[in-house]
């Protein structure tokens, strides 16, 4: 089940003109197993910029980077969104960070930087002398018609949760459109990552969405190792799998409890948080920290697992599995729970594919994509599962299935922990003009860290694509035609990161 090998996805580079970019990308994506990874821009020098597109070949485990340099003084490029809807937020983010306009984008507006909170002429990642297009005032989509009313929610929400704005357009209690406006937590991580010494970048990289510390740290480590052409020792690779799967287990268990809470089913809401706590205690045994911070690092991991703790961990995973297996049917086989979740917030497989919805939410809508199959850094589940219903219930059931597969991976990895050092020495410098990509199936889905160095071997561009960056659109689509009162439940069934999206 577990194949450990150096994660060095084969990398090809293609340089195209901005006018040909959409055609080239769509042609490549017709090949079986190819996926759109991310789109962003990069400063080549003070005046010149390029649009970069990352494509993943999931069958061969390879990555392709298309670069479209823009002409001097050019601040726009033809949008890819019409052919590739999954790129729609990425192009808007490039608009805010670089001041480059995607011409032909069907919903062009700012995303991360709001004009009433940021200087309108600030494009933080643009070159000093680069041409830019001004950021226009933000306008929500107006739904008009008899009886249409709007409900604005946020940025601060009612519970203990991250901030973001939801604008519901409703007819009575039925949502006809949801527009999600995020960016409130933009902290400039990608910019900071080009300023700090690369050997300390891991601390910042894993703060991209700190509830996914192991996932982000792993994606960062893989990207840096890809750049350097090194691989972690086998024991470190196995310990990383433990961290990644414990993170998945803790969050999926927490989500089952939170979903129960959102429908007022108190047995689920009170039984699952202690199980989540037990998982965090296991994470602390492994990494020293409940949230698994500062553990995974380029070249290996920060601390070893001695045999006493290994046995304690194995015992802990088995005890936890027994309790979770006992409690899950109380939720997912309860008639009241099923009635409340069945058919709510349905996302069709077609739209899930078009918008590249990832993780459990994607698999609940038939995508079948799990980056653990692609990336050798994550042990794939024994049997990749998917559902086609695409509703809240399917997303809850996917989590239950992934809890079981994570337990199996943890048990197997703990039973067969290889003996080796846990860290390889890192070279003093990064190679010049190189690209490193780290792909991880974090608990929310495919997480990408994409690093490009300049001619001096310094990090020129550090791009992060959180799974939530794909999936927020999935939530906006899934809630259409549903009751306003079902939004919290539907939102929780996706459980997306705001900070990972805002960066």
């Amino acid at each position, binding site marked *: 089940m577990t194949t450990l090998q150096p994660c060095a996805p084969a990398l090809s580079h293609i340089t195209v003109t901005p006018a040909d970019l959409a055609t080239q990308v769509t042609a490549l994506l017709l090949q079986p197993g190819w996926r759109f990874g991310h789109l962003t821009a990069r400063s080549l020098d003070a005046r010149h910029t390029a649009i970069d597109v990352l494509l993943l070949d999931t069958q061969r485990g390879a990555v392709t980077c298309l670069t479209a340099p823009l002409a001097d003084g050019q601040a726009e490029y033809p949008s890819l969104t019409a052919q590739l809807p999954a790129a729609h937020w990425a192009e808007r983010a490039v608009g805010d960070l670089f001041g480059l306009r995607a011409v032909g984008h069907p919903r062009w507006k700012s995303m991360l*930087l*709001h004009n009433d*909170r*940021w200087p309108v002429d*600030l494009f*933080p990642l643009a070159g000093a002398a680069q041409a830019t297009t001004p950021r226009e005032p933000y306008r929500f989509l107006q739904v008009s018609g008899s009886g249409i009313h709007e409900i604005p929610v946020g*940025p*601060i929400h*009612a*519970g*203990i*949760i*991250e*901030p973001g704005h939801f604008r519901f357009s409703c007819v009575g209690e039925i949502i006809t459109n949801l527009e999600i406006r995020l*960016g*409130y*937590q*933009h*902290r*400039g*991580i990608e*910019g*900071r990552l080009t300023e*700090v010494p690369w050997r*300390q970048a891991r*601390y*910042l990289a894993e*703060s991209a*969405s*700190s*509830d996914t510390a192991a996932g982000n740290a792993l994606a960062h480590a893989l990207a840096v190792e890809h750049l350097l052409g090194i691989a972690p020792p086998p024991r470190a690779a196995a310990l990383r799998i433990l961290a990644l799967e414990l993170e998945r287990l803790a969050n999926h268990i*927490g989500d089952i409890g939170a979903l129960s809470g959102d429908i007022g089913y108190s*047995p*689920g809401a*009170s*039984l699952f*948080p*202690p199980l*989540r*706590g037990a998982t*965090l205690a296991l994470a*602390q045994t492994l990494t*020293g*920290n*409940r*949230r698994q*911070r*500062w553990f995974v690092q380029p070249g290996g991991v*920060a601390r070893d697992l001695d045999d006493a*703790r290994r046995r304690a961990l194995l015992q802990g995973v088995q005890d936890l599995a027994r309790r979770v297996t*006992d*409690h899950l*049917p*109380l939720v997912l*086989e*309860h008639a009241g729970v099923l009635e409340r979740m069945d058919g709510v917030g349905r996302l069709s497989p077609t739209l899930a594919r078009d918008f590249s919805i990832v993780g459990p939410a994607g698999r609940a809508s038939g995508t079948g994509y799990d980056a653990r199959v692609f990336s050798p850094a994550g042990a794939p589940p024994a049997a990749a599962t998917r559902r086609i219903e695409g509703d809240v219930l399917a997303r809850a059931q996917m989590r239950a299935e992934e809890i079981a597969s994570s337990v199996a991976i943890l048990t197997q990895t703990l039973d067969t922990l290889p003996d080796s050092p846990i860290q390889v020495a890192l070279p003093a410098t990064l190679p010049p003009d190189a690209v490193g990509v780290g792909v991880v199936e974090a608990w929310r889905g495919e997480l990408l860290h994409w690093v490009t160095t300049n001619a001096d071997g310094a990090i020129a561009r550090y791009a992060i694509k959180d799974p939530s960056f794909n999936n927020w659109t999935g939530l906006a689509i899934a809630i259409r035609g549903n009751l306003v009162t079902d939004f919290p439940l539907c939102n929780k069934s996706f459980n997306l*990161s705001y*900070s*990972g999206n*805002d960066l």
Partner: protein
Amino acid sequence: MRNPFLALVRAGTQTLTQSFPDLPTEATGLPTVTAASCRGCGACVAGCPTQAIVVAGDEVTLDRGRCLGCGQCVRCCPTGTLAEERATRTAVRTRAELLLSNHPGPRTPSAALPLLRRSLHVREVSTGDSAGDLEVIASTNAQFDVARFGVHFVASPRHADALLVTGPVGRGMREALLRCYAAMAEPRLVIAVGTDAISGGLFRGGYAEANGVPTDLPIAAYVPGAPPHPWSIIHGLLLAMGRD
């Protein structure tokens, strides 16, 4: 179909009976400065990702308000001047108390509002540290059960005595945070949870101006850590209430 109520009864009382236990040995505690004399090698300073340590001669000063708790300094300290703290009562009432030194000066702990000793209603505002939010949520679960200390999280700032902030408060959230505070009735206080909220942590100095809770807000308790342990968060809440 199993009976959920039977499962609840069988699970028994989940609430932890011992308050503020020390961290177990396998956990990495926040660094602390011991009396052991420092020989000034500076390894801790070079390795610290947030420049939280200053070494001048044999004097070591550690700013827990900037420290992430990564443990790098403890691992490389040859003299044991920097060591791990096992206690979970790590919150303090003033920013100055977060500065730890092997040559500590006199301390005058400040008093808190006596009005809110028995019950505190808290509005949490998150600004970019989702792990910190999860630990705040954990403090409300059946195990930590912060409600037994009289602390309740509320939805509206109109109902709140305290504003609990996580995350480094960048440009995008600054106005929302200040408006939330303005909507609260007097007396009101602010609690900064996590290194990001206290100083901006890793984000400090960037273009997003994410340098922590604005210093013009009156902060009644600081809870260091990235993120802090739920017990430390509860400690911060109790300190803000004038208890500990």
